[in-house]
């Protein structure tokens, strides 16, 4: 059994009197699709911030592929292969879809201090970009300026940009957010196809997706992981059900006994 790709130990983050992350432990095994769920206010945003490097923890360590990345900057972690997608689409508005992804491809280079050749003419950047756009279902939208894309297309672009950095692990922050029925189906299929290729930490509210795709589910409540296990184990876990009472308990209970209705 190989060591986990991502390993979080004793992570703590306090904002004044508020403890957002409370001695949190988390392991994501290689090749695993690990979902992180939890009620609102559980501290997901803070946790993601600490995993990506935007927030500095007060305590604890984060190891990625054996190395301690706790003190590394956002961009250093990305270069190590930890890619993220944003919950609220965060793209380059004045760039085309292809330009967005091409810039992500470009980030893999040692440096971009190249001042003369037009970036748009470099096949080495554009072709992988087009391939990634195709893979997420945006083929044909290459030349559209990002600001003109529909919301669902933004979510796809988000994913394409994360993929283009050739990551070892994907940190996906609510990729299903704001998608309609058809778009959700397409995104679910996409996530399914990614499952075999990448280690994924998936933060989601959509329980259908979580329970149908995840190998392992961890439940975040009050800044700590209260339960971690297979979908069946989590479904049966009393603590988890308690945590969701008053939240989306109906939705949660509906997923019991097999896959949820579509």
């Amino acid at each position, binding site marked *: 059994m190989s060591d986990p790709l991502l390993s979080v130990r004793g992570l703590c983050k306090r904002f004044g009197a508020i403890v957002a992350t409370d001695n949190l432990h988390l392991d994501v095994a290689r090749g695993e699709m690990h979902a992180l769920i939890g009620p609102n206010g559980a501290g997901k945003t803070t946790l993601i911030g600490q995993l990506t490097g*935007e927030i500095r923890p007060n305590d604890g360590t984060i190891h990625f592929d054996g190395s301690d990345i706790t003190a590394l900057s956002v961009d250093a972690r990305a270069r190590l292969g930890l890619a993220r997608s*944003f919950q609220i689409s965060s793209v380059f508005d004045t760039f*085309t879809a292809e*330009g967005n992804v091409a810039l992500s491809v470009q980030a893999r280079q040692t440096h971009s201090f190249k001042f003369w050749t037009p*970036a748009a003419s470099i096949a080495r950047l554009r072709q992988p970009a087009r391939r990634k756009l195709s893979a997420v279902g945006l083929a044909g939208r290459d030349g559209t300026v990002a600001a003109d894309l529909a919301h669902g297309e933004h979510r796809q672009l988000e994913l394409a940009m994360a993929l*283009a950095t050739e990551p070892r692990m994907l940190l996906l922050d609510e990729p299903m957010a704001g998608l309609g029925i058809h778009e959700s189906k397409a995104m679910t299929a996409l996530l399914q196809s990614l499952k075999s290729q990448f280690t994924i930490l998936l933060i989601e509210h959509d329980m259908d997706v979580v329970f149908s795709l995840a190998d392992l589910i961890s439940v975040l409540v009050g800044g700590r992981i209260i339960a971690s296990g297979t979908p069946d184990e989590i479904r049966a876990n009393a603590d988890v059900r308690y945590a969701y009472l008053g939240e989306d308990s109906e939705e949660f209970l509906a997923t019991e006994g097999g896959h949820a209705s579509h």
Partner: protein
Amino acid sequence: MSHHTRIIFYLALIALAACVPALGDVFYTRLATQIAIYGMVAMSVDLLVGYTGLLTFGQAGFFGIGAYVTGILSTHGLHSAFLVWPAAILVTMLVALVIGALALRTRGFQFIMVTLAFAQMIYYFWLSQRSLGGENGFSIPKRNVVFGFLNMEDHTTFYYVVLVLLVLVAIFSLRLVNSQFGMVIRGIRDNERRVFAIGFPAFRYKLAMFCIAGGIAGLAGALMANHTSHVGTDMMSWQQSGNFLAMVILGSSGTLIGPILGAAVFTVFQQVVSDMSSHWLFYFGLLIVLRILLFKGSLFRFLSAAVPAGQETTAGGGVLIDAPRPAGLETE
């Protein structure tokens, strides 16, 4: 506007500019020279403001350093443009490196204030140099020499030299903003948080651009010193920095060529209005205020510098408010 139409437009502008001496009166040639030099500085400001999202209120400082380096070398008997102009650029870029390393630690409003403050520091430094004439500055006996056969004292010849340099800088800048470096820069302008997230250490790219823009302003300063045969602290007043920003917005930010037109508007406006009233600055201030209040977007959208393959466009017109900064571990 397609790529080819744009090329034709630029060529037309160049041709128009080249015809100015044909008007006969050296007054117009000198006016056009000033426009070209200011246009060069305005372009450098646009590189920062319109393409990187860095609102600098201190470019006049670099403009002034270029001028003073030229002047000082001149007083030491060094007149070759091949020595003086690169020296002006180099010194300016070094200063920009130091100032940028500090200023780029700040964002938004702070950055504006810090660049303004550092430019003031430069201003006060030169002001205090009594051996260099303090506020009044000093005169330069002769212009820098490019080639022996070119009489730089002749205003028409000098104008063409300046024009050639302007075109070269413009070509360099246009290539720059469409290059891989330029993509990172524009990414920073659009969404700096995302630039970090895909793996770019944004700071060094901003710093590089800050130095490049500074160097261009330094070259323009050297040319201005030659143009007026004089060097003085009014070249680097904070009002001058404001004027450069005004040129950018009068010509539309994020277009590179627009600011050159903005420099033309500024210069012509100054000439025409100061003939009519000694309070031309009042009307200039009014012009700026009206431009901003009445026109929300870009006046010259069609000038947006697009990539040759036509695949990307810049929105131009107004700098986006800075993206939220990752409150974390940037090590630079």
